[in-house]
């Protein structure tokens, strides 16, 4: 069993390994110009220089702060709107059509307006990220509340629950898995949009590092940037995933059955 498992894992390394060797050979013998495809060794060196000079950390810090702020604002307001639409009929009736209308417009389309209104500074980036984080969070919170099984609500009707107890025992726990999905979608959207915002508007940040590097044809720096943002995105999603298993143990095990 164990050996089989190990073999399966190793098979997965074949293609990355082949690609790596090909990459190394191609760049070493300059079959591909090193401006386009710097050899792996150079990549490590570049990463090390960026790391030890503090350049990478400083820019990552800026990007992460923006994501933090945008995610906080966007996800919490999305949570509020989703909850309000899920719980109160009038709010749902009046606001859901408007929300659905604006949801159709990809956030990227708002860039010129946001730039016009907010300039190219922090405000633009944070508002832009918030808008992106807002949408999936609203949707998933609303969905989660709307999809509380009717059979559970019937059980509770027999017990004559008040508002608060109904919310606490049935609605919130039942909606929580969907809300967590919303959080994860919202965070990965925020992470993507911070890169997008930094590509468009100057200022410090990992996206900006990549833009400058691409103008100067520093392919190595661009590649390091790509790898770093991928790992960071993955790590953030994992973190939320861990929180989810921590809080939603019953959900995981139930679904596993």
């Amino acid at each position: 069993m164990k050996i089989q498992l190990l073999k399966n894992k190793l098979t997965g390394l074949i293609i990355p390994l082949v690609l790596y060797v090909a990459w190394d050979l191609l760049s070493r013998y300059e079959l591909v110009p090193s401006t386009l495809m710097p050899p792996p060794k150079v990549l490590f060196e570049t990463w090390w220089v960026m790391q030890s000079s503090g350049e990478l950390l400083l820019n990552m810090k800026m990007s992460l702060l923006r994501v933090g702020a945008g995610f906080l604002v966007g996800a919490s307001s999305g949570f509020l709107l989703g909850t309000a639409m899920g719980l109160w009929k009038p709010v749902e009736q009046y606001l859901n059509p408007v929300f659905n209308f604006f949801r159709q417009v990809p956030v990227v389309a708002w860039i010129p307006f946001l730039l016009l209104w907010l300039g190219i500074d922090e405000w633009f980036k944070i508002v832009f990220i918030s808008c992106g984080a807002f949408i999936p969070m609203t949707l998933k919170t609303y969905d989660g509340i709307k999809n509380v099984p009717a059979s559970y609500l019937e059980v509770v009707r027999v017990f004559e629950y008040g508002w608060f107890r109904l919310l606490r025992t049935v609605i919130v726990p039942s909606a929580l898995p969907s809300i967590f999905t919303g959080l994860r979608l919202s965070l990965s959207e925020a992470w993507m949009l911070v890169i997008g915002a930094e590509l468009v508007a100057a200022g410090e940040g990992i996206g900006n590092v990549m833009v400058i590097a691409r103008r100067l044809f520093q392919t190595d720096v661009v590649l390091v940037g790509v790898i770093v943002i991928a790992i960071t995105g993955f790590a953030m999603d994992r973190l939320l995933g861990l929180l989810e298993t921590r809080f939603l143990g019953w959900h995981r095990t139930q679904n596993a059955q």
Partner: protein
Amino acid sequence: MERLGTLEVKNLSKKFRSRNDELTVLNDINLTVQPGEFISIIGSSGCGKTTFLRLVVGLEKGYEGEILLDGQRLNGPSLKRGVVFQDHRLLPWLSIEKNVGMGLKDAKSDESRKAIQEHLELVGLKGFEKHYPHQLSGGMSQRAAIARALVNRPGILLLDEPLGALDALTRMYMHQELERIWKQEKITMIMITHDVDEAIVLSDKIVVMSSRPGTIKKIIPVPLARPRDRASYDFVKIKEEVLEEFQLHTEHPFTYTI
């Protein structure tokens, strides 16, 4: 607290209206259930038995006629009537003890703790307090659901095919358990079923319903001593009588006894 529960149903009719259709689901139902009685309602699917039960629970609104509990007209669901659904409907995110305590005003008080403990013992789930529903078998889940329905000491327990989803052997075992609980708690029980044996084993009276529209066809008393022997002559006789209502009887009743 005195446990009451005389249920009177008088001229009850229920219609469902869709846009241009009107469907009579129940027509002129008359039934009196004495305190402490065990009644089974049996009928083919679509005869409105579940609708009847939901009306008595209060989950279904809008009917003609009267449903009276101790002379009072029913108005919405109430803690005075417990329900056990076919699917156990335990909340997956609550432990068994919390599920059982759902109907209590303050589940943390000493009194409530005691009630929960007692009822877990009653249904034979002592030691499973901290388990979650997905860790329980079908029969155990249904017991927990029964404990949950009983914990606030309702006058009537309504059971909607509570054992329908269980396998035959577990079901027979649950019959014994249900009878024991019924005796111990001295509570009125109304159970919906489509299992004739189950109805005869447990009930004082069997209400046979016919469909479209749902009406009471016959009420068959079961004057047998408990616990009942499924192979006894009288048991088979009654089974014969019930099956006759569904045109399912044969000339050789003993071929049924296994």
